[in-house]
């Protein structure tokens, strides 16, 4: 399997790195007395050099579908670590659960790009030793040290999988697959639409406006000036009467489609797979405007009570076989380049379907989740920061 072309990855990486530097430099301006240090608070915590015996228990915070018995049972048999998973439906929830270094309760969190920096800079996660993960060297180069989990060469987590947010639709209502996100803003579908109950959804609307209203000049859906932000909020406010329900739990959306309450909406690939398994007439697609997406990392809590089990888990889920199993279960793309062969063995054609072999072309179409901050990519300081996204979202929902 060919590794992805370097230039595009590096370009995106540089943008993210710039954002990180901007955050650190600019942080003290936006906060009221709280500090955003140049170096994350846990930078000096030395990770272990060897993995000891398992402690018998592992407490994980994960996305729904990330800790499935089909691969977890084997892990417990091998290591004796009993896995206890708490599910979260949004990055915000994960950040909140992980406060105070995990509170001495949680060991790891499968955080997406928009949660990682927040976790790192509040000192809730600590550095991991990538040399303890044998499969690390097989990871695609970009995912070995992406800017959202690696700062100044220190790894604050190990990359896991990545994927897009899809447009899920009922094949009964849409005989031909929709080609544009406009269907979820179309008044003809009033009362039949669902989107995630997550402020980051504003970026999806911004992505749509990038193509449909180029005059706004949106270059990055996470970096919006006031004018761009207001236009996006206006679009979402117009969408509000079309929404049947803002789904907060993955099973909510599955229920909505299964029972015919909605016919189209934004979803993770997980929902599509579960619905198809239950025989529902649905399918998903990425429309021409592109999609937002997520790159996930297993991060280690600063106060993790079971660090050895945590490392054993990270080793386990980085192996090609488990990477393939998880990718097929959730509908995402593994970071381990050796997983492609395993995916093909489990389900023919899956490697191509989930773009585990494609290069930067596919990767570039996805606008990965990242935390919106005041510093825009071009150096100016008037982009809308995330806390305003949160309050705007409450207002949009009404």
């Amino acid at each position, binding site marked *: 399997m060919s590794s992805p072309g370097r230039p595009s990855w590096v370009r995106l990486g540089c943008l993210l790195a710039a954002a990180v530097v901007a955050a650190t430099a600019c942080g003290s301006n936006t906060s009221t007395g709280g500090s955003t240090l140049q170096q994350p608070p846990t930078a000096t915590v030395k990770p272990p050099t060897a993995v000891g015996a398992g402690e018998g228990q592992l*407490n994980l915070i994960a996305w*729904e*579908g990330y800790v*499935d018995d089909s691969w977890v049972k084997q892990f417990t048999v091998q290591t004796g670590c*009993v896995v*206890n*998973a*708490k*599910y979260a*439906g949004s990055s915000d929830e994960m950040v909140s659960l992980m*406060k*105070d270094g995990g*509170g*001495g*309760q*949680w060991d790891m969190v499968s955080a997406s790009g928009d949660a990682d920096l927040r976790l790192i800079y509040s000192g809730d996660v600590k550095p991991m030793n990538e040399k303890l993960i044998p499969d690390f060297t097989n990871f695609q180069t970009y995912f070995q040290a992406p800017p959202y989990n690696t700062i100044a060469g220190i790894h604050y987590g190990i990359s896991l999988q990545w994927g897009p947010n899809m447009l899920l639709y009922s094949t009964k209502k849409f005989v031909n697959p929709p080609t544009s996100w406009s269907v979820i803003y179309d008044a003809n579908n009033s009362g039949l639409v669902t989107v995630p109950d997550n402020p980051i959804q504003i970026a999806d609307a911004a992505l749509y406006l990038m193509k449909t209203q180029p005059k706004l000049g949106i270059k990055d859906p996470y970096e919006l000036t006031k004018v761009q932000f207001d236009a996006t909020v206006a679009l979402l406010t117009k969408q509000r009467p079309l929404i049947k329900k803002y789904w907060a*739990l*993955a*099973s909510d959306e*599955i*229920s909505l489609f*299964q*029972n015919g309450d909605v016919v189209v909406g934004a979803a993770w690939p997980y929902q599509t797979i*579960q619905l198809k398994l*239950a025989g529902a007439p649905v399918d998903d697609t990425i429309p021409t405007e592109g999609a937002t997406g997520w790159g996930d990392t297993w991060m280690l809590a600063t106060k993790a009570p079971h660090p050895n089990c945590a490392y054993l888990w990270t080793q386990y889920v980085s192996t090609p076989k488990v990477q393939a199993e998880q990718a097929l279960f959730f509908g995402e793309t593994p970071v381990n380049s050796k997983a492609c062969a395993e995916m093909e063995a489990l389900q023919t054609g899956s490697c191509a379907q989930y773009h585990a072999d494609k290069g930067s072309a596919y990767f570039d179409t996805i606008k990965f989740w990242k935390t919106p901050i005041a510093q825009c990519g071009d150096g100016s300081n008037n982009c809308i920061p995330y806390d305003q996204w949160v309050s705007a979202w409450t207002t949009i929902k009404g």
Partner: protein
Amino acid sequence: MEGRWTKLALQAWVALLLVFLFTPILLIFIYAFNTSNIESWPIPGLTLKWFSSTWNDPDVRSSLELSLRAGLTATALALLLGSSAAFAIHRLTFFGREVVSLLFVLPLALPGIITGISLNAFFSFNGISLSLWTIVIGHTTFCIVVVYNNVLARLRRTQGSLIEAAMDLGANGFQVFRDITLPLISTAVVAGGMLAFALSFDEVIVTTFTAGAQNTLPLWIFGAIRLGQRLPEVNVVVSFVILVTIIPVVIAARLTGGGGVARVQAGR
């Protein structure tokens, strides 16, 4: 005493409300046999497989065990503290008694989410890490109130003259308590304890904020609902709990409702 038509109308109303109350519970029973793990109507098929998978599920066992432990501990604490508070309030008249009464109503009167987030903030502010004990503290707070209300209500209905008579006959304080007061309030204590346990067992809002990585049964149920993979297991567990509690509930009903307070007849 009531006219025939009134009686008929009342019976119809009661029957309708019983249907209203029990339809969802009937659905819970039926969907424990669901072949699909997505709940949709009509039910696609019936199977027994979820019973064995629930029995073998370690998460179910550990959360059930934790719920029982938390419930019993919280109820025990509540019985102790709630009864003693009821006695004190009943016997004493002091300045601020009204305020204390109000205080003891608060945990039930204030929405659970407020109790939950304040306790959570309190624990993290004082560096107390979340564990079984924080769960118990959260539950005890409203369990005390339930026991307190039940015992106080019964004390108010107990005739003080009985105690006076006993003392006139020479009984000391302890004897009065053991032989007169305790038997009179025992059913109220038991009923209060059972209600407290029921509330603790099914509590989810306060527990969400006071539990760490442990799952009580309601927390496990919420996790299972959000995952959507093993919904029929939830139905199996809930059906099991309902069946197991039918007997205690009937006993409680006899103690407080049916037999506890006799209908007051005309003329003393």
